């Protein structure tokens, strides 16, 4: 391949050009849900997913996929399969009204997320202790049900890969990475000088 891109000219050509080997199932791995805390004191919110082979790798990959731009003080990930999801409601129906009494027997910790508006992110609402995700939803209905929500998520805290104690430094230089910030590209002076020069 003769390319304008010197990198392409250096590429080895594995397989046969133009011949496609269809991907096997899970070639792109499973998915992990990514939650980010934008500032100290602010709640975590859902930001999206990464595809990764396991929880630890998901954390490593989510760090750059979701926290290289904008502010971040902490990050965590969990397997999509470990998120328990309530029914989804619309109009003036509260999702908590769809949660039935499960009683509460166990005392594992669960993170509860609310969808306050369709189209927005799920935001962390609090932690409850319960024996199952169903119980956790019921417990949340009693303690966190303060205003209408459209959807509730419950994640067992022990299924989460959190930011470790020594890892909060990972975002130390983030505010200084000005080259990723629109505000660092002020061309106004250069433009003015150019226009002045052209006038004369």
């Amino acid at each position: 391949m003769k390319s304008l891109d010197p990198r392409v000219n250096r590429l080895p050509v594995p397989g046969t050009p133009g011949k496609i080997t269809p991907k096997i199932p899970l070639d792109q791995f499973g998915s992990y849900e990514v939650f980010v805390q934008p500032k100290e004191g602010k709640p975590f919110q859902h930001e999206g997913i990464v595809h990764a082979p396991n929880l630890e790798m998901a954390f490593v990959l989510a760090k750059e996929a979701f926290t290289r731009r904008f502010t971040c003080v902490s990050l965590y990930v969990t397997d999509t399969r470990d998120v328990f999801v309530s029914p989804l409601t619309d109009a003036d129906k509260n999702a908590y009204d769809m949660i039935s009494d499960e009683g509460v027997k166990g005392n594992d910790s669960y993170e509860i997320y609310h969808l306050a508006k369709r189209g927005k992110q799920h935001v962390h609402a609090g932690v409850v202790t319960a024996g199952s995700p169903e119980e956790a939803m019921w417990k949340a209905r009693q303690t966190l049900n303060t205003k209408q929500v459209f959807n509730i998520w419950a994640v067992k805290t022990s299924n989460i890969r959190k930011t470790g104690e020594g890892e909060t430094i990972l975002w130390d230089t983030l505010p200084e990475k000005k080259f990723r910030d629109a505000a660092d590209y002020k061309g106004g002076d250069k433009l003015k000088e150019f226009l002045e020069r052209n006038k004369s």
Partner: protein
Amino acid sequence: MNDQALKELLYKLADDLLILGHRNSEWTGMGPLLEEDIAFSSMAQDKIGQSHALFQLLHQLGEQQPDLVAFTRNANQFHNAVLVELPNGEYDFSLVRHFLFDMADSLRWQMLTNSSYEPLAQLAKKIQGELRYHTLHANTWIKQLGNATEESITRLQGSLSKLMPYALGMFEESPMEAALINDGIFKGEQALQAIWKSKVEEVLSATQLAVPDWKILVPVYGGRRGQHSEHLQPMLDEMSEVFRIDPTTEW
């Protein structure tokens, strides 16, 4: 403080980071998984950024502007280890180099947090978080691929044997090493190499990869003195292709 020795130290740090950052950026848009493509690019950007910060320190010490220094020198004026200029190869090669280099790099900067040259110590403290990510990323990948399939283990092992002599070349001592150590600027390559070896062994022993027999390895030296492989000059020509159209203009 021995200015000459200090400058030489800054140059080799800056050149290592510039050249490897450049090499690693070649993977952008061509990585093995979208998420990894992004992560690898970020680390390349960190390296170029750190390199730039070092060239600014050099500028404060009387050297030319960072852009001129980085984009107009010839290969024999570069102080980087040969390790970082080698072409990327396949992903195992790039990952193993990332692991070997970033381990040394992070340990070096840890030492430099205590440097008697205050601006360098400040920079070292500032970038600890970036380095923490680089080693987290490298160690995680090596541990996982080093325990996975026959193919991944064979590939990593092959790259380790190819790269290890070059990696040892990172620790080539400066003729002014004693001055750096006596002035408290840097604890020296020997001290660094010793910790590096034990850390590399620690990670490798958690995998099915063989720990190298250090005694029989012959380091590839020369990079620190401007003696490079045939790969560096073409890389520099490419890097400065646009800049050299007119080095006096602003781009």
